[in-house]
């Protein structure tokens, strides 16, 4: 579904990712795990076309998208939930969702579906995004991405700074998307949060591939986590 084939990229002249490869299947949650600065967010930006690829390619459903202009990448069916939410703060909840809907011409039934997942957003529908609480903003960021009817979903630390009930709500939505056959790439810092949802875990270290393991194996043996995150 979503494939990174030996990509290299970085900022200015500083290379962050080197020959980094990854493959997320439909109906699977792959968790990207690594220290701060290992290149997790950079990998997501590279998939979205927000950073130019220096080498390698990104494929969605077998179609190479690495050379496409950035605004055409999401049209292939990638929903992005960035770190820090990055909502259109001065726009209302409705307008934020409309931007998600128009990207791939999603109909009103998609909006209904998304609002059923997050009933709180229906109550706040005409409010400006910046007036929402942190948890509601994360819901909106997730809902905005789901409005694209994504085939692949990228989540960058979606539970950062949220209270447990919100984390659980987001977790349920992620699981639901997986069950609907969406390929989910999840970046997460908290080990317990990862192990409770992930099907596979890919480690990243200094912009290079580490091991890729099933979550079950990790649950059985914690030493690898300690090695990569160094707790």
């Amino acid at each position, binding site marked *: 579904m979503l494939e990174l084939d030996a990509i290299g990229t970085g900022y200015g002249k500083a290379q962050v990712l080197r020959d980094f490869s990854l493959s997320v299947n439909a109906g699977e949650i792959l968790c990207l795990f690594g220290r701060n600065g290992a290149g997790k967010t950079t990998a997501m930006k590279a998939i979205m076309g927000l950073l130019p690829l220096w080498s390698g390619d990104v494929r969605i459903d077998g179609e190479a998208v690495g050379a496409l202009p950035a*605004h055409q990448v999401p049209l292939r069916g990638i929903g*992005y939930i960035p770190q820090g939410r990055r909502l259109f703060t001065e*726009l209302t909840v409705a307008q934020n969702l409309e*931007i998600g809907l128009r990207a791939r011409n999603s109909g009103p039934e998609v909006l209904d579906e998304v609002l059923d997942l997050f009933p709180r957003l229906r109550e706040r529908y005409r409010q400006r995004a910046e007036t929402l609480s942190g948890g509601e903003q994360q819901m909106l960021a997730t809902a905005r991405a789901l409005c694209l009817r994504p085939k692949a979903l990228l989540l960058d630390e979606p539970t950062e700074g949220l209270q447990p009930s919100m984390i659980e709500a987001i977790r349920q939505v992620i699981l639901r998307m997986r069950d609907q056959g969406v390929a989910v790439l999840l970046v997460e810092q908290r080990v317990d949060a990862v192990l409770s949802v992930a099907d596979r875990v890919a480690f990243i270290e200094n912009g290079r591939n580490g091991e890729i393991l099933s979550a079950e194996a990790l649950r059985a043996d914690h030493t690898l986590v300690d090695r990569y995150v160094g707790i």
Partner: protein
Amino acid sequence: MELGPYLLLATLEGAVTAAVLALTASGLALVFGVMRVVNVAHGEFFMLGAVIAWWVASHIGGAPVWGFTAALVLAPLIVGAIAAAADMTVLKRLDYDPERTIVATIGLLYILQQATLMTYGPDARPVEPPFNQRLALPWIEWTETGLGLYWPWGLSTTSYKLAVIGAAVVVLLGIWALMTRTRIGLLMRATQLDRDMALAFGIPVERVYALVFGLGAALAALAAVLIVPIQQAHYLMGHDPLLLSFIVVIIGGLGSLPGTILAAIFIGLTDGIISVFFSPTLAKILATLLVALVLVFRPQGLFGTRAA
């Protein structure tokens, strides 16, 4: 004439300046707000609007109203197209880098100005207004029988000047509706708020930029078409609108449209009044001093929300 009627006259002149300035400056504010580009060539788009208006009007025979109407439609379209082309061929290739776009638009300023000098020449040429009735205005005074009206000599305006004010109000309402009520306005605001996220949600940011740059220039051109029956077209006429637009945009808060319009009304009226009572130079000096004070004490502008 007494002070009262004199002040009314100055206010009316100031209102015309304010109307034209509000249009010009909102074009500049739109470009800066959405694209973060400081468009130094904005005054030349204004000048081009006036020159093209003269050219169109002089090629269309018949009553002045036909030539003027054609200019009102064609000049903003042509200038907008030139600006959009400049965006796609120059600014886009600079990746909208803030410093380099300033230098590039300075270059654009001289290219447009000198090209106009070489083709249109150094003369100032008028465009006939479509209608221009003199309207005498009454003033109140105390007479033995109580409050009475009289018509002081020299207190008058023209129907065209009032139409300029009306047209500016209509266009500004149109811009407001475009930004808040339409799909394309939504895309512009999303691009303004977070360019990367706009891209991540499939908004063709490059096309939005070309459109915004064209629209900003078209607003300046439209303002120039409205003023050219009062002021005449000349290849150096872009300087004052550029200076005043920057003053207004800085006072109003960079990129804030409502702030820009309020500041344009304030600066336009004071410019008109001070010009009538003292001198136009003093008006510019005071406006520039106000900018300095705003920059020192409230750098985000009077109505700005974000730090500039």
